[in-house]
């Protein structure tokens, strides 16, 4: 994008000036270079979000922003119900609750590296993944309702995890307001067989080690040490979330006409938060969030079983779990007043700072862990939330962000070749789809180091550690 079109706030904050149709300005948190490299569509999509009723302060995009549908991926928008604010499928996506769980272990790189093939092969067998995969638990109709209402809490009560896990999941693994009555029969039927499945696309399970520590004090609070083995799971709400997305796209398209909401990009169809349609969508989306929490918890349980087959004395604890596709009721300070808003984060991680009541007491002194997934060949990061994050509704980036289309990536790389090249670098990859592997080639993404440095420099979250992969299972 042409940087001269932006109003520079500082080196890592760029404003899209408000036009007559925009209710607020747009703002991108990224370095000059990353903004220049972004697709023009990001400008358009950030501006379109800024035209929606009831939007607060600014329509935002993070350093990993790229062309999405409706909101850009990496987009954030907060809406006030009292001011006619809306909820939109385009602000959440078709995978509500998609997110990342990171587990910390008592294992070291030295112990695990020689057995990485055995670890990955074992987990590949145990954790169902890929298109059409079935979970190991078949839920009854009653169970389905319980999962949607109670998320990871219910799954843990059934024996798939520990009470301690629950403490370290965002929202303690369950959001309020989820009513299965607002979820279609199709969605419920699609869900029954899929709890505990990884999915496909950019979803993965990765074995990593702590390669660099940037903040010793924060690393200590998070229980992280150099060369420690971590396990990260990236997945979402599977077919249930997809069906909720498609069901409500239609409902919200009709609602947009009914309430005469001007829509600048069709995928931004929405309904006022306080309308019956808006309430129903929000409630169904909460069901997707709860299902995603439960889904990741079952995968954590399976992962523990798999790791213990190779390392019987392994201790595997939850560091934290975040979602990066969600709309959540939160309180934020806006124009010196505390307001309740619905914050849409589509490809953006919540990043609450120190002393926030929603975060685990063990992390209160430094802020929540902000888990940023890189690519299978580069690195990922763990940051902590800051007090300065209020300017972005306490949000950060979610990954490195695509820089190349899937279509072009498939023409540029071959799955088998990527597997070989990464193996030479000491990273053992196993995928369910070779085409999928090519699409997820590290070169198809923006450089994660630059993305994370931008978020760090913008003050939205601060770097704690860098982690590097040694093994990865792609869905």
């Amino acid at each position, binding site marked *: 994008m042409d940087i001269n079109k932006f109003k520079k706030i500082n080196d890592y904050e760029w404003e899209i000036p408000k036009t007559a149709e925009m209710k607020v300005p747009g703002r991108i948190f990224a370095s000059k270079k990353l903004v220049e490299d972004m*697709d023009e*569509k990001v400008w358009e999509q950030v501006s379109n979000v800024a035209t929606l009723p009831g939007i607060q302060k600014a329509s935002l995009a993070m350093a990993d922003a*790229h*062309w*999405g*549908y*409706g909101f850009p*991926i990496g987009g954030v928008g907060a809406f006030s119900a009292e001011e006619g604010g809306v909820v939109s499928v385009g602000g959440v*996506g*078709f*995978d509500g609750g998609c997110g990342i769980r990171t587990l910390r272990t008592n294992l070291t790189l030295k112990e695990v590296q020689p057995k990485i093939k055995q670890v990955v092969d074992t987990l590949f067998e145990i954790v169902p993944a*890929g*298109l*059409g995969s079935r979970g190991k638990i078949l839920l009854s109709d009653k169970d389905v309702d319980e999962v949607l209402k109670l998320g990871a809490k219910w799954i843990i009560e059934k024996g798939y995890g520990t009470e301690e896990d629950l403490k370290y999941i965002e929202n303690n693994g369950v959001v309020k307001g989820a009513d299965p009555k607002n979820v279609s029969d*199709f969605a419920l*039927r*699609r869900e029954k067989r899929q709890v505990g499945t990884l*999915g*496909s*696309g950019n979803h993965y399970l990765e074995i990593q080690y702590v390669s660099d520590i940037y903040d010793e004090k924060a690393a200590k609070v998070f229980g992280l040490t150099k060369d420690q083995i971590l396990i990260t799971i990236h997945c979402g709400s599977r*077919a249930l*979330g*997809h*069906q909720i*997305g*498609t069901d409500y*796209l*239609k409902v919200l*398209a*009709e609602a947009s006409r009914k309430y005469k909401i001007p829509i600048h*990009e*069709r*995928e931004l*169809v929405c309904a006022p938060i306080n309308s019956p349609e808006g309430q129903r969508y929000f409630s169904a989306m909460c069901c997707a969030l709860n299902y995603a929490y439960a889904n990741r918890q079952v995968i954590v349980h399976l992962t523990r079983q798999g790791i213990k087959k190779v390392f019987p004395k392994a201790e595997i604890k939850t560091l934290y779990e975040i979602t990066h596709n969600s709309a959540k009721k939160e309180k934020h300070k806006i124009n010196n007043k505390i307001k309740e808003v619905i914050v849409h984060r589509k490809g953006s991680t919540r990043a609450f700072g120190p002393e926030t009541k929603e975060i685990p007491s063990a992390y209160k002194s430094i802020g929540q862990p902000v888990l940023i997934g890189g690519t299978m060949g580069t690195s990922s990061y763990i940051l902590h939330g800051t007090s300065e994050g209020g300017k972005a509704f306490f949000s950060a980036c979610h990954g490195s962000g*695509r*820089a*190349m*289309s*899937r*279509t*072009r990536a498939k023409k540029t790389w071959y799955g088998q070749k990527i597997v070989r090249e990464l193996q030479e670098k000491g990273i053992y990859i196993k995928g*369910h*789809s070779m*085409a*999928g592997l090519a*699409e997820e080639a590290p070169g198809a993404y923006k450089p994660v180091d630059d993305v994370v440095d931008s978020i760090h420099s913008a003050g939205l979250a601060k770097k704690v550690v860098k982690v590097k992969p040694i093994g990865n299972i792609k*869905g």
Partner: protein
Amino acid sequence: MYGKNKITNQKDKIKNNKKQEMAYENFPHEADIGIRGIGKNIEEAFEEGAKAMFDVEVDIEKVKAIKKISVKCQAINIEELFIEWLNALLTQASLNEMVFSKFKVKIKKNEILKIEGEVFGEKLRKKHNIKDEVKGATYSQLKVFKKNNKYIAQCIVDV
């Protein structure tokens, strides 16, 4: 956009005589994938669009059309009908653990537009060369239009 990309003629065993007029293809999108169907009427464009979508998930030429499923949907305009059609197919594929390769669309026009469709395929298997799961068809880049006497239906699908 149409015209810039090469339209790949696919082998269509069922309507071989029409293969010059019917086609499907993908087009690039930074995060996801664009799908496009082309036909001599809207019904054919919708049928080809469905092929483009399932070809994102598997190699559809490897899918035998041995089991039939009926699919119904409706919408107030032709573009939203295309999305309803694709999403109804994804729902049926998921519920039946199937993948489809042959599609028949009949559009009925009254106050609202309705599709009564028949789709054919088989249980999803590794032999189909499983690729990406399509999460949903989106309104992004959604267009149904006529150009050079051909009908084109397209949108971005979320993967």
